[in-house]
């Protein structure tokens, strides 16, 4: 079955170019070099219709960058993004717009993701009117319907973002995304900035919308509990690479990759009392200078020589499960 959205071989690099002063300094012998961060390194990821794929990892692992490439606001350096099997960068005209609108994003920061100078009805209503999804005269009732769908009183349409709480602003952001009738929503740490009880409310909005509208999600988060609850499949990222991917229950019941194991072991859980924290020894390496071979080897208890030389490839270890670890090659 053709996935709704597929990322094939995506790589993205950020280079801090040297300006004139730095070039001069280098010419004079100073140890100045161009700094390159490989944010995303040859990633393959697919999301099918009505599927929720969770993407977990820590800061600097590249999950936000991957999310933005999936939505289309950031172009990849290598690889392609395919929408319903067709390369998105080769689409033109109406097809290109349709592909762009089909994938929307909800952002982490509820305070910066809404234009403070626009009223809610303009924030939500601008895009559908511009793209002709709804006629201008019907925009009012269209926006009201959307607000109701996300659990907000339609009377709020006249107000400005600063008059709302964080949770309410996230709902407005969801309404804005829904207004263009998307098929896939990328949630970039969408509930991370919210209090626990508000988090539950907003997650429930996501779950309900999925049932009502048949949406698919790419749910990016560093919170394992949330990801476990909402996802069908989970991908784990570390320093730009996907190290493991599996259906949710299997991943959490029997994690394969040492990094996944450590993450799950260290996440605080409500039923773990008097936990004696024994953290992963060693630093998270800087993305500017990732370790050779397997990125995780400096912190891995089971690291072998091979791990220092050769980056492990994602190999299938069971039906629907892949993992990138040399340990899996051993009989």
């Amino acid at each position: 079955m053709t996935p709704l959205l597929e990322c094939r071989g995506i790589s993205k690099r950020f280079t801090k170019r040297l300006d004139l002063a730095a070039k001069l300094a280098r010419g004079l012998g100073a140890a100045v070099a161009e700094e390159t961060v490989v944010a995303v390194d040859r990633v393959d990821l697919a999301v099918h219709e009505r599927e929720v794929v969770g993407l977990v990892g820590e800061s600097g692992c590249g999950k936000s960058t991957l999310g933005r490439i999936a939505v289309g606001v950031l172009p990849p350096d290598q690889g392609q993004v395919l929408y319903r099997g067709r390369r998105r960068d080769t689409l033109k005209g109406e097809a290109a717009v349709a592909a762009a609108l089909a994938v929307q994003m909800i952002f982490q920061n509820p305070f910066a993701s809404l234009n403070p100078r626009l009223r809610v009805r303009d924030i939500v209503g601008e895009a559908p009117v511009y793209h002709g999804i709804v006629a201008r005269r019907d925009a009012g009732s269209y926006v009201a319907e959307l607000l109701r769908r996300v659990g907000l009183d339609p009377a709020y349409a006249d107000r400005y973002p600063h008059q709302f709480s964080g949770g309410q602003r996230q709902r407005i952001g969801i309404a804005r995304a829904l207004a263009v009738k998307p098929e896939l929503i990328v949630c970039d740490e969408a509930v991370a900035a919210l209090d626990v009880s508000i988090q539950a409310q907003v997650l429930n909005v996501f779950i309900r919308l999925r049932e009502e509208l048949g949406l698919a999600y790419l749910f990016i988060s560093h919170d394992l509990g949330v990801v476990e609850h909402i996802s069908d499949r989970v991908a784990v990222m570390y320093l730009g690479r996907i190290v493991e991917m599996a259906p949710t229950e299997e991943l959490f019941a029997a994690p394969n990759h040492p990094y996944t194991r450590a993450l799950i072991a260290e996440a605080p859980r409500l039923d773990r009392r008097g936990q004696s924290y024994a953290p992963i020894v060693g630093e998270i390496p800087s993305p500017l200078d990732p370790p050779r071979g397997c990125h995780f080897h400096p912190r891995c208890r089971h690291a072998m020589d091979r791990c220092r030389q050769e980056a492990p490839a994602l190999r299938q270890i069971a039906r629907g499960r892949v993992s990138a670890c040399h340990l899996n090659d051993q009989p």
Partner: protein
Amino acid sequence: MSAEPTLFVDGLEVQFPTRAGIVRAVDGVSLAVRPGEVLGLVGESGSGKTMIGLSVIRLIDPPGRIAAGHILFRGEDLTRLPEPRMRALRGVRIAMMFQDPMMTLNPVLRLDTQIVEALTAHVPRMAAAEARRRAVAALARVGIPSPEERLRAYPHQLSGGMRQRVAIAIALLHRPELLIADEPTTALDVTIQAQILSEVQGLCREYGTALIWITHDLSVVAGLADSVVVLYAGQVVESGPLGDILDRAMHPYTRGLIDSVPSRNRRGVPLRQIAGMAPSPLDLPSGCRFRERCGRADAACLAMPELAEAAPGHAVRCFHPVRDAAPA
């Protein structure tokens, strides 16, 4: 555990005059922490939890003020202390850690300057070499690699997790008797959080530091705390030992919080949630402040319930506490 609490807060009230009226951010809160004990102070935005921490260390900016109550630190009332004496306590015997490490770190000074300054401010006769040695030791203690080199860095050259660790190192420099941690790991990754939690746990065990961990995340409290105080709209709604609160919570709000944690719910199904939002501090309902969101509220709840002990050591502020055991 030794009898006398390190900190005893009694009937604390903190108020802010605003354009729209007086906000009672903290409205009659009492709590106590003993040496070596960890108290989890749980509450969401607007519950007043941060204000309590700031009151203890007396960093509330005007026009906010402590309107009533006592804060007894080893028997001494901090609300009555003149500022010079408070300054002598701050950073030495009472320390605070914030969610944003840049509230501790000065962005324009190198780390060694800042740490040495924190040392010599309270021990003026310390020699430069000794101060430096202790700074290196402090960084090493929080697990920062190559501390001698790192000392020469500026805060912006470190990652978020490292900065928070430096902030902790500074908080721990003088081995404080009381440490107040205000959501220091909320913005951090799981692995960094684990490192910081292990540091702080070690400290409590080794030096008998009393720790107040302020958070809205019950899961962190579960692993760390000995006792829990739950705040809602400026009041304590429940308090007691950790096991009692997590397994036998009686206040509907606490139950709601625990039930809404994803791991307590069946996968894929909507989470159990608390309806509505916390009331605005300017528009508090009469009587029980939770009644508009509570499924058990009735006419009795129009009066303000008192905080009363419902089981040994376990107090709750509710007319209709939940008595059945929480589902696993």
